[in-house]
């Protein structure tokens, strides 16, 4: 017998006459809808105030003119000023490319380092799984900024790492890493690696071990079992890891300023946006730079989702 909408709780059409025994179902459905709204309301309101409203303001500002400290006292006027976008992009496209490149390299390194670690913990961690996994998260207990500042001491020209090597004559006196692209990428990699490790571990931990055993029973070697079974099943984790690492890393500000700040070829887009907002007080250009970054991340994430196979683009969009 086919099921009708009236048979499904919550889908009883309004106004439909029901036998007295089923009128309670309509009340139940109403209560369920109300509960759903009540559950969604606080978080939804928070997102509207904290994300949607600022987003609208940024978009409006990006299409405004004015903003100069002297002529308008910093006030902007909405004038559909699309030229802000062409100005922002034409003058700074190289920095967008650099930001994407730095984030891309750091993401690949993050995945490369985090995957084997997550794999070992998930498959061989045994009773130490939770402890080992907690160790990955330990850096989160220290401020992001402080962690990055510490790298100044590690990567310093005469710091913890290179000072002794120079003293031993293994490095030339003018060897340096700080204030170079290498330092920025290293910092991003360090700071975002836990974000990559988390989803990878969850994905790997969920893999049914019997599938790996079955592959081996069918004469698959260990590498082949990994390639044919484990890797495909961990793709959702890789996908999430890339999104969680690449997207925030592209807009990174801290690593670029603290580890690269002022060095040749180290400025990333976050630093540029900060400069337009807080140094030059050119709010429309700053807002246009922000919108370009956001939209390009969205497009890249959705394209990536299509290629790598998540069926739900909203996940990628939400991450971006």
């Amino acid at each position, binding site marked *: 017998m086919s099921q009708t909408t009236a048979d499904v709780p919550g889908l009883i059409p309004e106004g439909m006459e029901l036998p007295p025994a089923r009128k309670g179902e309509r009340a139940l459905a109403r209560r369920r809808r109300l509960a759903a709204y009540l559950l969604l309301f606080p978080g939804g309101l928070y997102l509207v105030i904290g994300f949607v409203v600022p987003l609208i303001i940024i978009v409006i500002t990006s299409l405004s003119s004015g903003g100069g400290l002297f*002529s308008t*006292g910093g006030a902007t006027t909405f004038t559909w000023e699309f030229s802000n976008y062409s100005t922002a992009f034409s003058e700074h496209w190289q920095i967008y490319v650099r930001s994407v490149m730095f984030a891309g390299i750091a993401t690949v390194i993050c995945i490369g380092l985090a995957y084997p670690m997550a794999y070992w913990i998930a498959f061989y961690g045994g009773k130490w799984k939770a402890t080992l996994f907690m160790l990955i998260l330990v850096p989160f207990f220290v401020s992001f900024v402080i962690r990055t500042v510490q790298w100044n001491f590690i990567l310093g020209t005469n710091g913890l790492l290179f000072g002794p090597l120079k003293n031993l004559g293994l490095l030339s006196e*003018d060897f340096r890493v700080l204030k170079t692209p290498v330092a920025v990428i290293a910092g991003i990699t360090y700071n975002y690696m836990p974000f990559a490790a988390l989803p990878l571990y969850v994905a790997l931990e969920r893999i049914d071990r019997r599938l790996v055993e079955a592959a081996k029973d069918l004469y698959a070697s260990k590498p082949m079992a990994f390639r044919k079974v484990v890797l495909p099943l961990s793709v959702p984790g890789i996908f999430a890891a890339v999104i969680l690492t690449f997207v925030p890393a592209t807009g990174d500000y*801290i690593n670029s300023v603290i580890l690269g700040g002022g060095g040749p070829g180290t400025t990333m887009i976050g630093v540029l946006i900060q400069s337009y907002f807080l140094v030059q*007080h050119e*709010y429309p250009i700053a*807002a246009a730079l922000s919108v370009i970054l956001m939209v390009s991340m969205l497009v890249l994430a959705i394209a990536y989702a299509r290629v790598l196979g998540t069926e739900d683009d909203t996940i990628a969009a939400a991450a971006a």
Partner: protein
Amino acid sequence: MTIDPQQQPGLSSALARGMTSRRMSRRNMIKLGGASVGTLSLASILAACSKSSTPGGSNAAPAANFDPATAGDHINFSNWPLYIDKAHGTYPSLDAFTKQYDISVTYNDEINDNSSFIGEILPQLRAGQDTKRDIIVITNGEYLAGLITNGWATELDASRRPNFDANAASWAKSPFYDEGNRFTMAWQSGLTGVGYNTELAHKPPTKLDDLMSTDYFPTGSVGVLQSDAPDLVMINLGIDPKTSQQAEWDEAATWLKKLRDSDTFYAAYDQGYVDDLTAKNLAGTMAWSGDVLYYKIWENQPFDFIVPENGALLWIDNMVIPAHSANPAGALELMDWFYKPDIAQMVTEWVLYMSPVPAVQGLIDEHAKKESGKYADQLAQTAESPMLWPDQALLDRVSLGRNITTDDESKAWHATFDSIWQQ
């Protein structure tokens, strides 16, 4: 009456200093991204979008009542970190003021750079509201000019600052960016020149050009102060930055690009260069006099500071009363309070920047004679340093920087110089 922590009975000078916070230049603060990025949020954007009730460019500073009889009983004073005397968690110079006038002072060391601080109070200024700050300290230049141009700085009553009239240094009186000190009174000042590590530099530099020579500095060991570099370079190219235009800016930009592309270049800094100087990542850098002197005199670091042959940049941090302050009369009294030599001495012995009260030099010298040991030596060095007490010969070799006063100038300036370091 003044309170001097060094002279409290039963408390040795060394112990007193040891019990107080570590001296640190107010400019030696890393402009940490978290804080800066945080201010990118709604405040700045809303400031940009909200409707202005004080039209820009009107220069219509609201009239304020400076009659001491109307002075309120509280002042909010916003300044840069570690830029005032401090002892046992209080500020002796401010405590003395409170005792004298029965006006309490809340001191906030909340200013980490001019631009973001102005951005923070912009919504109130533009809405014609009280910023909840009665005195703010802003460096001469674009942002101070913006305050004055927009009528966001309260015009001071020149008849109610007797200590300033009697004791202010010549350079603090009627600077070109605020003739007659209508809106500002100097808090402290300093020079931007060349600081270097005497152990790492191959030989002592004498010219700004030496920064890009491997004869003087090792490869990858020279820093640049982004904000001050254009003016300093112009001075050293024989250009008066105060009257400079685009052609001269391009000339300075060419010099800076040459330095950026030289073997000696390490990095350009907003602030925080001292961390790299002390970590030996830098052998030489454009530097602020007070930073280098502090580490040289009080921390015995092998640093030195020079005024390059063609001159150095003079900058002045100015006390300003924001428009619609709740207590302008009390604020002006406090501003003038810091021009009493014994009060100014308390500040200078801590911050080691150029005091706007020259008489302080003699007071520190006398103080040094009363002390003994290392502390006396340090005070004596403070009293003798030409960088703190420039004579006329030195003042003739320094210049204030370009005063940006229009949006077109601001855009052209930033387009010329900011892009150099964003490569």
